[in-house]
């Protein structure tokens, strides 16, 4: 009996091997093209806005939207993308926020083979070039260094004696490219403001509770701190909460990045100094619009100059001065995005 079972199991796996003999990629199907987005998770407001943006764009062009999440697992992300290709028979375009930059080559090879157009955001290794792949429409990103630099300088300005004091930094996930870029931006700001000293930095893993704990512990080591720089808004909210308990909220300010509604409130209340809003709805809208245009032949990918294949668009810098305007523009009403000119917000090419 045992032998039969083992044989069955081995036959099953071999079957899978043999079938790959006939692997041909998805068959082109008639019918509406699916708009698919591969993102990290749905469990945080910023990432959830990817979905909102994609659905809004889908509605405007009358096409169905599928959402895939990686949940911090690169392999799951890649497998889900392949599943989506299988599902639609290749009649799909992608917006992808890769889990890690090392996923890009694998994804590009898979989608190139399947003939599926896609656009990536945030993560791309510097020496992998978009123009080496036929179906990789573009890689777009916000300038992480600029974000860290902006929040850093805004934070320094908020000190009791501006640009002079001690700052504590809560980094994101170690080994994560955007986190590292934002931190680089902070260091650039520090280099320009020699009066400011970075007393210590820790890794907060994008986690609000962790940032709360670390800030409380930090206040023991450096009670005379002047500001807390955080790599994203979630952690910034945790830091604000810890400062509130110590009676320092409003005296010691905090900065983040992402632009979640809570942090806008904190800026209004004077407990946070600044944040950088990455407009997720625009991100997915633009990504899907470009990929769809490529698929429909309206955008000739191969003919695009290199500067339009890898580029950055500016994020929205938010501080006390413009927070009310931003909330009015982006939260209370959804801006009317214009996706007819893909490069309207083009700021700088990524080399």
């Amino acid at each position, binding site marked *: 009996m045992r032998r039969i079972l083992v044989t069955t199991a081995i036959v099953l796996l071999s079957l899978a091997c043999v079938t790959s003999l006939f692997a041909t990629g998805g068959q082109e199907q008639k019918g509406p093209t699916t708009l698919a987005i591969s993102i990290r998770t749905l*469990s*945080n407001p910023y*990432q959830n806005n990817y979905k909102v943006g994609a659905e809004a764009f889908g509605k405007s062009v009358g096409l169905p939207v599928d959402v895939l999440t990686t949940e911090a697992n690169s392999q799951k992300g890649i497998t889900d993308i392949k599943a989506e290709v299988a599902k639609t028979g290749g009649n799909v375009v992608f917006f992808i926020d890769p889990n890690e930059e090392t996923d890009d080559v694998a994804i590009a090879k898979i989608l190139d083979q399947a003939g599926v157009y896609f656009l990536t955001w945030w993560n791309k290794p510097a020496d992998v070039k978009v123009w080496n792949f036929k179906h990789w429409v573009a890689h777009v990103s916000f300038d992480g260094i600029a974000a860290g630099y902006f929040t850093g300088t805004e934070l320094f300005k908020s000190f009791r004696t501006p640009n002079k004091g001690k700052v504590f930094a809560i980094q994101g996930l170690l080994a994560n490219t955007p986190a590292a870029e934002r931190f680089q931006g902070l260091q650039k700001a520090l280099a320009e403001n020699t009066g400011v000293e970075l007393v210590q930095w820790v890794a907060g893993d994008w986690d609000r509770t962790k940032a709360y704990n*670390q800030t409380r512990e930090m206040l023991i080591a450096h009670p005379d701190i002047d500001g807390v720089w955080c790599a994203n808004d979630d952690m910034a909210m945790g830091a604000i*909460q810890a400062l509130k*308990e110590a009676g320092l909220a409003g005296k010691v300010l905090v900065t983040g990045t992402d632009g979640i509604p809570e942090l806008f409130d904190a800026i209004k209340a004077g407990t946070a100094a600044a944040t950088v809003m990455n407009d997720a709805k625009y991100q997915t809208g633009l990504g899907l619009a470009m990929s769809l245009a490529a698929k429909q032949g309206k955008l000739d990918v191969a003919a695009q100059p290199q500067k339009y294949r890898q580029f950055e668009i500016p994020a929205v810098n938010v501080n006390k001065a413009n927070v009310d305007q931003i909330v009015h523009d982006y939260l209370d009403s959804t801006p009317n995005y214009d996706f007819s000119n893909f490069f309207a917000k083009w700021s700088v090419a990524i080399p």
Partner: protein
Amino acid sequence: MTGLREKVEGGKRAGGRIRIMLPLGTAGAWLRRAGVSGQILSLIIVIAIFAIGTRGRFLSPANLQVILSLAAIPTIIAVGVHQVVVLGGIDLSVEGVVALCVVFVGLLLRNKFNANDVGLWILPITLGLGGVAGFVSGICNTKLRIPSFIGTLGMSWILWGLAVFVSRGQTVALLDTRFQELVTGTVFGIPLIALIALALVVFLQIIQDRTRFGRYLYAIGGDEVLARQAGVNVTRIKIVVFTLAGFFYGLAALFLSTRLGSSQAITGNNLLFPAVTAVAVGGVALTGGIGGAKNAALGALIVTALNDGLILLNVNPYAQEAVNGVVLVAAVALTIDRRKLGFIK
């Protein structure tokens, strides 16, 4: 069985090394009997290292206050997990249960999102939610006969998905301040939340030491078949333990969201591993039958003190995981009472 034997023989066969470390007569004997001498020793080692490393700042009243305050929630969770571990199982449902409870706290307490305000009713509601989740895990384990690892892991994923769906990934800012006092207040300089955690630990420890339920717990953990043959209603005890664990997670969820002043599903993330680590470091054998609430609490305290010390010492974040690992292994290596365990698994 091991558990019972330990209770009988533990006092008699005291180890030479530990006797040297604790020449305190009756107090030492009590610690040995209670099975926490090793953990107290590791805690002392950790404290000593950091106290020297930070030139005493680690022992400042302000820092001790921070450690106690931060250790409270992990303690509550670890105490919930440890009872299941004593039974010989494991409870991985923490993250899902906490996520769902936190989301409901956000939606039901006074918040910026909707007009709900259930006030103090939130306490029975979250405890009830947690309890029901635990109860279902217990049923899964006993009636469907599914190993607790998978039953609770599945439960965690189910509830996590539900929490994300209910919250739609949004963060809800809490406006309610009635519970704020509980998590921020202090009594004679001791954080109130730590006292609450302590009360729970003492309460559970008394139950474990003094009641029939407690004896049955260790009997099942030691040898379930024997316990069953001796007439213990194993099924009922197991379901009660899972439900109790759920209550603890519900309470932890309430404190977590009140402390952060907000509610989001990801608040539940990164709670499981520290809790299980605390349980293991506290000397609760993962094979079951050994260790009580005091062990779980000490474990949580050690883990929290360790994290706090690493930050105060300004250990390079890249190396923190390694230092954490080395200290954990060293602490357990120095203090584990190997005579109790027979073969280490």
